[in-house]
């Protein structure tokens, strides 16, 4: 679905990262780990075509990103940014309907079919009861899920989520992670970033460690998330512990204990 080769990315006049290469197949879930300022968001924005790449190639569904229009990209990739509260008071349904834009003509308004797609996206996230509420009057977690619903309304093949659990409480974090895993099982590729290695263990099939704009390692989480890689990435010492029920978890060692 997504193929990135020797990508150099950054802002006009300033390269933030280089030599990043990875592939994402349909239904695969990949987590990008890295410290703040390491280039995660910039990488995502480049993959979405919001920033121009400096060199290398990005291929979406076999087509180079340069050959796609904005709407073309939007029909393939759904973007879930970090939510904020400065929106106008659109209803949740209207908000999610905005996701249908890429499928509409320039002068068209959403039809009954589009309403159906939006409602189903809300239902799949358990949010249908909030459809008529203003988006400014729901909780932070619900707003994050509304953003996911909006991205789903695009009927994309790839979902890109930028730190989807930041500023969410524990319960909402878990719910979002569950949804992501479930979506992956429906055949949508998922690319998300996180600051918590445990999220990679919980729902990612592969992890990409991004430090200073360079891909440190790419591979299965239990292979790439180790004490030494975490030390290199975050400058802290951790223990990676295997759990009795299967899976792993990453525990920081405070003050060397």
């Amino acid at each position, binding site marked *: 679905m997504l193929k990135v080769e020797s990508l150099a990315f950054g802002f006009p006049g300033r390269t933030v990262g280089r030599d990043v290469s990875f592939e994402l197949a349909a239904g695969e879930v990949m987590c990008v780990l890295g410290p703040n300022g390491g280039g995660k968001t910039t990488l995502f924005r480049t993959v979405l075509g919001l920033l121009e790449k400096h060199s290398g190639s990005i291929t979406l569904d076999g087509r180079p990103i340069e050959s796609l229009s*904005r*709407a073309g990209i939007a029909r393939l*990739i759904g973007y879930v*940014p970090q939510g904020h509260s*400065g929106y106008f*008071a659109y209803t949740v349904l209207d908000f999610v309907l905005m996701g249908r*834009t890429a499928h509409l003509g320039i*002068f068209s308004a959403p039809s009954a079919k589009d309403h159906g797609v939006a409602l189903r996206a809300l239902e799949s996230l358990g949010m249908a009861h909030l459809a008529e509420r*203003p988006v*400014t009057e729901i909780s932070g977690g619900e707003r994050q899920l509304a953003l996911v619903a909006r991205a789903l309304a695009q009927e994309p093949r790839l979902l890109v989520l930028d730190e989807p659990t930041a500023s969410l409480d524990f319960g909402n974090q878990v719910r979002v992670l569950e949804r992501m895993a479930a979506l992956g099982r429906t055949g949508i590729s998922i690319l998300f970033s996180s600051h918590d290695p445990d999220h990679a263990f919980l729902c990612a099939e592969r992890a990409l460690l991004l430090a200073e704009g360079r891909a440190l390692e790419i591979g299965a989480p239990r292979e790439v998330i180790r004490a030494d890689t975490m030390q290199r990435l975050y400058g802290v010492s951790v223990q990676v512990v295997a759990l009795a029920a299967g899976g792993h978890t990453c525990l920081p060692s405070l003050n060397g204990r």
Partner: protein
Amino acid sequence: MSGRALSYLLAAGALLALTALAFAVGRYPVSLGEIAALLFSKVTGSPHSLPANVETVVLQVRGPRVLAALVVGAALAAAGTAYQGMFRNPLVSPDILGVSTGAALGAVLGIFFSQGVFVIQMLAFAGGLAAVGLVYWIGSRLRGHDPLLALVLTGVVIGTLLGSAIALLKYLADPYNQLPAITYWLLGSLASISPRDLSVAAPLALLGLAPMLMLRWRMNLLALPDDEARALGVDTRKLRTVVVAAATLMTAAAVAVSGIIGWVGLLIPHAARLLVGPDFGRLLPLAMLLGAAFLLAVDTLCRTIAPIEVPPGVLTALIGTPFFLWLFALARRSW
């Protein structure tokens, strides 16, 4: 009937009632019966027995003025609505990119060089378009900044520059003759509206309205941060260009014939949003209805409460502010 549909119906009804009232009142006494007889004769082509003055007042003076108030009010409200959505800021007025200041400079130049009414209006229209063109051109060249912030800052800067040019012209103008004329133009007025003014301004305003109506659903996406809108498939730069061009065309056409009338473009979109929410497709028609009704009410007062004309900008602020505060206190929704 839903709350929204009710709002529409009430607004449309209020507008019709106001229009009929506006036709019926004025310094020159004309009865409703006379108006009816006149309109009937014009429609059927049969002659009427009314004095020539009555026909002149109703068809040449009052009629165009009432219609112009509707057109200008609707145009300013529409432009304000578009800009408040585009700049994601409920405190934005149609003049944020300098169209009124540019039009004022054009008109002041016309007065300074002792031109006739038509030339002054053309200069005002051209000045408004040129000012925004300049702001937009400079603003879009400023790379590396949030595009909206670049536009707003450029608008403020250029607006100030044009404002100082106007101040200079006021200073150099002949204080007995030109300066009062300049002052009156800047205060705004619909007193000198002619049928020709209407026949030029209305089509231009419609020309600006057309793209806004056609793109009304897509314009909702401008309320999102730029990255999000683009990720959803919208070419935000192109859409903004169209919105700015359309809003500028409407505002420049309005200001060219009416001078500067403030508050309509700022307050009315607010009021409409409090009633029906931010969805542009529902917001735009209501804002235009309310804007037309508001300016018509204000202008009718301006021309009837005294033998002399009261500047409409004064009344829009005096009436609009308490009305808006009342609406704000009543409303149960946020922006």
